[in-house]
């Protein structure tokens, strides 16, 4: 293992080491994981054909939130820069899509995704530069400022002509391509799924590459990383940009699926939601982000079912239970269970070998 990876494992026993460090001692596990991913993808492809439209809508939103959380994960989980401002990137992506699709531009919905991504990338980079000077809670405040500023800017009469002010913008639902025997909800689901798979794969590739290792090295031991010749400023800023890009694309998808954007939807509380989803899913885990999306969408509904008046309290209790049982998030929990299972298997194998050689 390289120095940063060793540090990462030592720093926090429950934290997530890099993907390769996990794969080596559990080679059999890696193949199993590929099988699991394959199974999940197949389930994802079949799902909309068997469930109701409304559930398809929910699953699409889960994927969108998962993508947004993956963006936050890249910045906070893999690069250690704490952000409370991702609701702003989500909102900027959503409004970019809404503005382009309505009004005079009348852009097709699929083109809004790269536009939203590009806009957010630029915004992210411009924020990443000054963020270099800030650490920890001070960075949190700066990103929090962003989260608070966005709804105010969207509502201000400076930008009212563009954003529709407090009334928001209503978007038409895209139709499926002619000839395909699926309805609009199913089409949006597949569209989102395709985007999700591409972007998740890209993120996984990024994390496994040299760039990814540099990014994680900066998180774990910035001084050592700099000493090894990594240009921390460049990587930190770039990560900000890429992270914003991911969440921005998620925002654009969100706008298209919900068909409506309004300024107060993209407030500070959404940032907190993303953060909670990230932690519950497992920081530094790419599939964990999807679990975070599931959490963000479904747990408030569950809490409400238990008690309408005290739904917030029930939500808090569920959250506490999850943190007590899975301090490193769902991904950490899965990893630890797999590791204990593998250990059990190894113990019984060595025992049987020992017995047979006697």
């Amino acid at each position: 293992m390289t120095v940063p990876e060793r540090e990462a494992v030592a720093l926090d026993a429950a934290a997530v080491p890099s993907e390769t460090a996990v794969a080596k001692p559990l080679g059999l596990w890696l193949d199993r994981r590929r099988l699991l991913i394959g199974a999940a993808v197949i389930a994802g492809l079949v799902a909309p054909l068997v469930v109701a439209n409304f559930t398809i809508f929910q699953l699409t939103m889960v994927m969108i939130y998962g993508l947004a959380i993956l963006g936050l994960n890249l910045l906070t989980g893999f690069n250690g820069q704490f952000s409370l401002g991702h609701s702003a990137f989500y909102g900027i992506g959503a409004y970019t899509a809404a503005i382009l699709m309505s009004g005079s531009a009348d852009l097709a919905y699929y083109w809004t995704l790269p536009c939203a991504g590009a806009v957010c990338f630029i915004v992210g980079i411009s924020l990443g530069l000054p963020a270099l000077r800030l650490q920890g809670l001070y960075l949190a405040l700066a990103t929090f400022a962003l989260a608070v500023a966005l709804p105010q800017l969207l509502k201000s009469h400076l930008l009212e002509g563009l954003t529709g002010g407090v009334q928001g913008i209503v978007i038409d639902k895209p139709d499926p391509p002619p000839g395909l025997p699926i309805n609009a909800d199913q089409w949006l689901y597949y569209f989102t799924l395709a985007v999700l798979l591409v972007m998740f794969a890209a993120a996984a590739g990024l994390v496994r590459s040299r760039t990814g290792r540099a990014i994680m090295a900066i998180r774990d031991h910035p001084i050592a990383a700099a000493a090894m010749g990594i240009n921390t400023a460049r990587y930190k800023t770039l990560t900000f940009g890429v992270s914003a890009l991911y969440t921005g694309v998620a925002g654009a998808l969100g706008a298209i699926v919900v068909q409506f954007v309004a300024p107060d939807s993209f407030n500070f509380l959404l940032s907190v939601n993303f953060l909670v989803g990230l932690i519950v899913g497992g920081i530094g885990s790419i599939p964990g982000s999807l679990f975070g999306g599931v959490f963000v969408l479904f747990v408030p509904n569950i809490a409400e079912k238990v008690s309408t008046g005290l739904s917030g309290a029930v939500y808090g209790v569920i959250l506490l239970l999850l943190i007590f049982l899975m301090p490193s998030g769902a991904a950490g929990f899965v990893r630890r269970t797999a590791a204990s299972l593998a250990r059990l298997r190894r113990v019984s194998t060595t025992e049987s070998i020992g017995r047979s050689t006697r």
Partner: protein
Amino acid sequence: MEQLLQQVVAGLATGAIYATMALAVVMVYQAIDHLNFAQGELATFSTFLAWQMIDWGWSYWAAFAITVAISFVIGIAIDRILFRPVRNAPILSQLVAFIALFSILNSSDGEIWNFTIKSFPTPFGTKPLLGSGLISTHQAGMVAVTLVMLALLYVFFRGSRLGLAMRAAAANPEAARLVGIRVGWMIALGWGLSTAIGAVAGMLIAPVVFLDPNMMLGVLLYGFAGAVLGGLSSPGGAVLGGFAVGIIENLAGTFIPFVGQELKLTVALIVIVAVLMVRPAGIFGRVAVSRV
């Protein structure tokens, strides 16, 4: 010119609210090294307890004292029960525990005491101060109490053995353990102190903003901004930061033409971020130098 003075004084009055909260925020930050999102909700809950006692007919000072005592105990209890199990979890997981606490308290407040705003009495009276139309006696009292609390804390931390032990436990837990300081209890004490200060803050703030379950959300955010501006390692800085945030926000709202009103929170935060660019640890904060 007169309007400037008026807005500055009004800003000081609002800033006093933020300063009290900022003080509580910094207290817990010093004890446990991160931000307690649930601080505001704990303060609101304490204030509701006090209100309930007053509603039952008890005297203001009795309710005040009992509430502060109960809040102190609640703070310690929360630390021992809720946060000790997750103390070894990643920092971000602890953050989630705070968020959970926030959610539970906020929801429970609404359910128990409903959302009608309630007025909360003040021992200072509400006449205009010295006959001037700028701030009331209560707001002046609020400023005074905040400064007194700050002074008391200063004396406690610098002049008493317990205060020294707490500082040691926060600065270097390992070394502190080696000299016999029970670090776990020092942290719990820090929690208790911060909840008690939060209760005082809540009871000072409620007469101005009225008591309702969502009373503290905005205040916590502004208090947090003030604490960061002043420097998270400096209680005095946090208090000054709180005042500064109040003044900046008022001036931005009044004097920046055209958009000042709508964007005053944004402007205030931009100013703070700009300050942080120059002094990344806050105005009075100490940049921690760590050995590599």
